[in-house]
């Protein structure tokens, strides 16, 4: 294990009923690194992400952040993490801005101007005051990405962030990842397509 790593996953095993979904998965990620987790459907990519978040406790194995088990430092770890799930996870009755305010506001003090700036950065500034219900799938994905930006967290865990995005949108996400990682952040991305990135990308294949 890389001693300077900030995130380490050590021999994690997860069973779902009878299925041995994750078999001794290990990885390490340091500041400035981007890890691409890929593999066919059903091999446990989302499960791995949820284990790293701390939503799912593995039967065996440890996830550690800055050398300490995430179970012991739950709220500290969560404050340092930005998770984007496969669904954009927005309340359809709230506007994009409100969605961000209620999510980011729990993690850190944030002003409305900052939130609008995040929405502008991902190209949905005009949608800030529209209810999420009327946004297209691609726009909702961009709002979710704006939320990730607004968290200002060092560790990004993104599950299929390119879903529903057109070419420009995908390029935007790649650009944001590049900026994040160059600025010393860490990112773990689950995606079934190749990441065309200007920086070095570590890869982990899950093959069940």
């Amino acid at each position, binding site marked *: 294990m890389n001693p300077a790593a900030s995130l380490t996953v050590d021999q994690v095993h997860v069973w779902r009923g009878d299925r041995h979904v994750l078999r001794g998965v290990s990885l390490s990620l340091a500041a400035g690194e981007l890890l691409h987790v890929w593999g066919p459907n059903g091999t446990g990519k989302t499960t791995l992400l949820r284990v790293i978040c701390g939503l799912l406790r593995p039967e065996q194995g440890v996830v550690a952040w800055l050398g300490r088990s995430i179970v012991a430092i739950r709220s500290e770890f969560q404050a340092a993490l930005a*998770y984007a799930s496969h669904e954009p996870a927005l309340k359809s009755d709230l506007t994009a801005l409100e969605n961000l305010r209620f999510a980011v506001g729990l993690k850190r003090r944030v002003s409305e101007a900052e939130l609008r700036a995040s929405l502008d950065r991902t190209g949905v500034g005009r949608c800030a005051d529209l209810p999420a219900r009327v946004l297209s799938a691609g726009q909702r994905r961009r709002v979710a990405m704006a939320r990730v930006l607004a968290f200002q967290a060092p560790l990004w865990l993104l599950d299929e962030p390119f879903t529903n995005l057109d070419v420009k949108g995908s390029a935007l996400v790649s650009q944001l990842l590049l900026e994040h990682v160059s600025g010393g952040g860490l990112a773990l991305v689950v995606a079934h397509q190749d990441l065309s990135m200007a920086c070095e990308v570590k890869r982990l294949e899950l093959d069940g």
Partner: protein
Amino acid sequence: MNVGAAQALQLILRRELCLSFRRPDQLLQPLVFFLIVTTLFPLALSPELSLLRDMAPGILWVAALLSSLLSLDALFRADAEDGTLEQLALSGQALSVIVIGKTFAHWLVSGAALVVMSPLVATALGIPVGAFPTMLASLALGTLTLSWLGSIGAGLTVGLRRGSVLLSLIVLPLAMPLLIFGASATDRAITGMSPAGALYLLAALCVFTSTLAPIAATVALRITLE
């Protein structure tokens, strides 16, 4: 921690109330159900107010229980379905703070609304005005206790198919003590006796449930989120 628990609680309350009032139809449905259920009893029993008065505390309480159960199902379900529950669980705030905020907000829009509507229903069932203060106090305490109990059931059954049936199956037996104390308090007030004993017991039950239920509901949600 950049955002303290009190601020987080406020934010969650605001979020929940905002969401509830954006869907006024969903707010009103349990209240209308409450009215409908209370109407069923005179139709099934008798229109004689003197007769209904004897049954009134029971009718009122059963109707309140059933309509609270209807709205309890939605406590966590909407957030679980669109993925925002996970975001809340990963917000860095203690999950119990989120549970307390959501449950209390839920009580404000359902239980408290029932309490406000109860004088209307009470008059229709022949309950004398003198018994109103006791009735309101007992309903307020009772619906609050039920919200806490229901949060445990809702946490366990969110995401299950036919979860709402299971929710009722789980919560109703646990709610029987509060039904006994609450209906009895109202009954004693109607007959002119002192309801103090029953009210104190109900209050004790409320305090007990309010302190322990959030812990159980938090554990239930963690099990669900896995």
